[in-house]
């Protein structure tokens, strides 16, 4: 007996295919509808969502965040618990939760972004990221380098922290110094002002600032840390030599050995105390000065990232990313909350006094909240195109995270500034990069 059913052609629809397409369609439409309506589905009601994140530099932000999360929970029938710990403790906590297969549903990464280390155990958040991108004009170019692995997004970038130039306009004007629009002008200013009791400083110790600020200068000099794929280190270059010579010159001429002992808050105090002629730091320094020394504050001005090579500005920022564990029993609620948080990232920017910079293009429509209305801070609105993260121009890979966490880059500069020869310092730094990359290639 022959089969009376029509033969399958290329355009035919199989039962399995039909179920797949309609299932995906219904699921996707539901999620989009939910996100558009900002209404959670019934299945997350009665669940508990546990979030682990850092203690923000602006405590008011944490107060707002906790209340905001609780409020969202009440509206959606989800019990939300937010725990805050210092950001340096996050990697240890993350390792412990992964080993135990239990803990929080959502975990935050700050500065040290461990997506590539854990992605096999993280929930794919591509759908949430795509929805946000469609709604808000796409992500800024550097965002995906933090969270994308094999074409999928395993984390959701919510905000990053910028580090502009902060300089004393009164001192610059009194000494006929030009605004530090290039690193060379910044050096001239530091040299001139150190002699008058107002040196500058960028941390050369083992702290986040040392990793961030010196990389901004290096990348602006045309240097790179890895190739665009992130697989090969590219540190060893003539740009590195030029940059190191510059770093040594600016240290000798415009800084004091204090920078060898600094932590992430030292430059804030340096500016607020009225000593520094300029610093290169997050706007926490601006806020600290505003709160503690109004006389200095009124003369502090922010500048765009200085150029190293003509026209080349790269600003290395501290990224902040949220991830959802695969072991979470409440992944749906976690996704809902993160989508809601992205929708409200501008409110987060307000609550953090302009500290949190969003990753979505449409958010940069001028005037932005807080920074758009403060004449001194308006320059921050021009940063998203030049923002980069560790591993530039490649992604934030696992070897780069080890290099960052063991402070290889600032240590190489420190060695040269402390008297080691240029070639020895480079040999050590490049050697460490190759050794660390080599370990991961072997693995």
């Amino acid at each position, binding site marked *: 007996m022959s089969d009376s059913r029509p033969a399958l052609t290329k355009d035919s629809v199989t039962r399995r295919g039909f179920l797949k397409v309609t299932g995906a369609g219904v699921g996707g439409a539901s999620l989009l509808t939910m996100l558009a309506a900002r209404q959670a589905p019934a299945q997350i009601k009665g669940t508990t969502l546990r979030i682990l994140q850092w203690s923000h530099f602006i405590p008011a932000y944490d107060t707002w965040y906790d209340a905001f999360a609780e409020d969202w929970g009440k509206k959606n029938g989800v019990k939300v618990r937010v725990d805050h710990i210092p950001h340096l403790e996050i*990697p*240890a906590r*993350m*390792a412990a939760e*992964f*080993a135990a297969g239990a803990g929080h549903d959502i975990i935050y990464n700050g500065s*040290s972004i*461990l997506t590539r*280390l*854990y*992605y*096999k*155990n993280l929930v794919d958040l591509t759908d949430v990221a795509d929805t946000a991108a469609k709604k808000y004009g796409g992500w800024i170019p550097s965002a995906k380098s933090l969270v994308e692995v094999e074409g999928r997004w395993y984390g959701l970038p919510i905000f990053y922290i910028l580090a502009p130039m902060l300089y004393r306009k009164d001192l610059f004007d009194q000494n006929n110094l030009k605004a530090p629009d290039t690193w060379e002008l910044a050096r001239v200013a530091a040299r001139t002002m150190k002699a008058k*009791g107002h040196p500058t400083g960028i941390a*050369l*110790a*083992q*702290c986040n600032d040392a990793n961030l600020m010196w990389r901004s200068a290096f990348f602006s000099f045309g240097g790179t840390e890895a190739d665009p794929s992130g697989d090969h280190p590219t540190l060893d270059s003539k740009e590195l030599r030029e940059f190191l010579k510059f770093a040594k010159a600016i240290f000798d001429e415009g800084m*004091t*050995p*204090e*920078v*060898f*002992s*600094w*932590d992430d808050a*030292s430059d804030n*105090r*340096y500016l607020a*105390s009225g*000593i520094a002629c300029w610093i290169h730091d997050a706007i926490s320094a601006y806020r600290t000065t505003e709160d503690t020394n109004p006389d200095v504050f009124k003369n502090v001005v922010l500048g765009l990232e200085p150029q190293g090579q003509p026209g080349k500005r790269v600003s290395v920022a501290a990224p902040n990313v949220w991830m959802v564990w695969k072991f979470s029993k409440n992944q749906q609620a976690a996704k809902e909350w993160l989508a809601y948080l992205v929708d409200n990232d501008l409110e987060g920017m307000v609550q953090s006094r302009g500290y949190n910079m969003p990753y979505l293009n449409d958010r940069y429509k001028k005037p932005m909240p807080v920074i758009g209305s403060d004449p001194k801070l308006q320059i921050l609105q021009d940063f998203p195109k030049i923002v980069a993260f560790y591993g530039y121009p490649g992604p934030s890979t*696992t070897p780069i*995270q*080890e290099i960052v*966490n*063991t*402070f290889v880059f600032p*240590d190489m500069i*420190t*060695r040269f500034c*402390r008297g080691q020869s240029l070639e020895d310092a480079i040999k*050590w730094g490049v050697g*460490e990069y190759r*050794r660390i990359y080599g*370990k991961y290639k*072997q*693995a």
Partner: protein
Amino acid sequence: MTLSTSSGGPDAASARAAAVSITVRTRPRRWFRSQAARRLGFGYLLLAPAVLYVLLLVGVPFLFSIYLAMSDATVGDTNASFIGLENFRAAFESDVFYIALRNSVLFTVVAAIFKGLLGTTLAFLLLRPFWGRKVIRGLVVIPFTLPISISVLGWKWMYDSQFSVINWFLSQIGIIGRYGSADWPIWLGQPLLALSACIAVNVWRNFPFSAIVLLAGFTSVPTEILDAARVDGTSFVQRFRHVVVPMIAPILLIGLLFDTVFTLSDLGVVYLLTQGGPANATKTLPVLAYQVGIQAGALGRGAAIALFLFPLLLPLMILLLRNLKRREY
């Protein structure tokens, strides 16, 4: 003949021996049923919880760390492959490891010397009767009981390059110049000073522990023996060296053992003060292991670095425990 048999003699002896041997053969007694074996078994039974406790809490983690050190384990993957001694080789390839190893030894030895000196002095001071002694005895342990993060952050402020209260005081009494002068110490920025500063905080935190241990030892020495030594015309130093120290040696050795383990594995002081900087000048093995193993996620290499603490501690432990055992007999 009969008499001879009853009173003994060669024949009687051989007959008794035969009788004994027959008895043994007919009623064999296994060793494990003997009184001695039962007592031994009961002893082991009583010991078992302690052995199990040590095995579970010390043995298993130790073996697990060896397993990690010989694998390519990362913090983000449950699968790990055996790679032999590769992680140890990786440690030897890095000059930061040698710096950390040197600093760990230096840190432990120098801190132990200062804690010994200060602890002994403090113990003697607290031994003497004076008004408010009990309160003072309570107060001196405060550094030891304070949470490490709080106390070390306090020190971080005191070592601040700009606002150091230590520098301010030294400047006020004319030992150093004003802020910005060439002789203004940058405590956490100059390699030797930074390491010394870390050691000083460790000493400050832990010397009260040494003092309390010594104080407990001193008070256990019978005053009659000290009086007798005094009557014999011994000096204070002679009494301390030839009477007190031998009598409290077990306490001293156990205290030294604890202190060495705590100091060598101290992560908090260095991590919170300098994170190992400047340029690894204060990096110790625990800090390096934490940075590589947890923060960077290379668990296998971190475990290998941390395991280097074991051969450092082992000879000292063997020496101290042998010494203790010898004193028991």
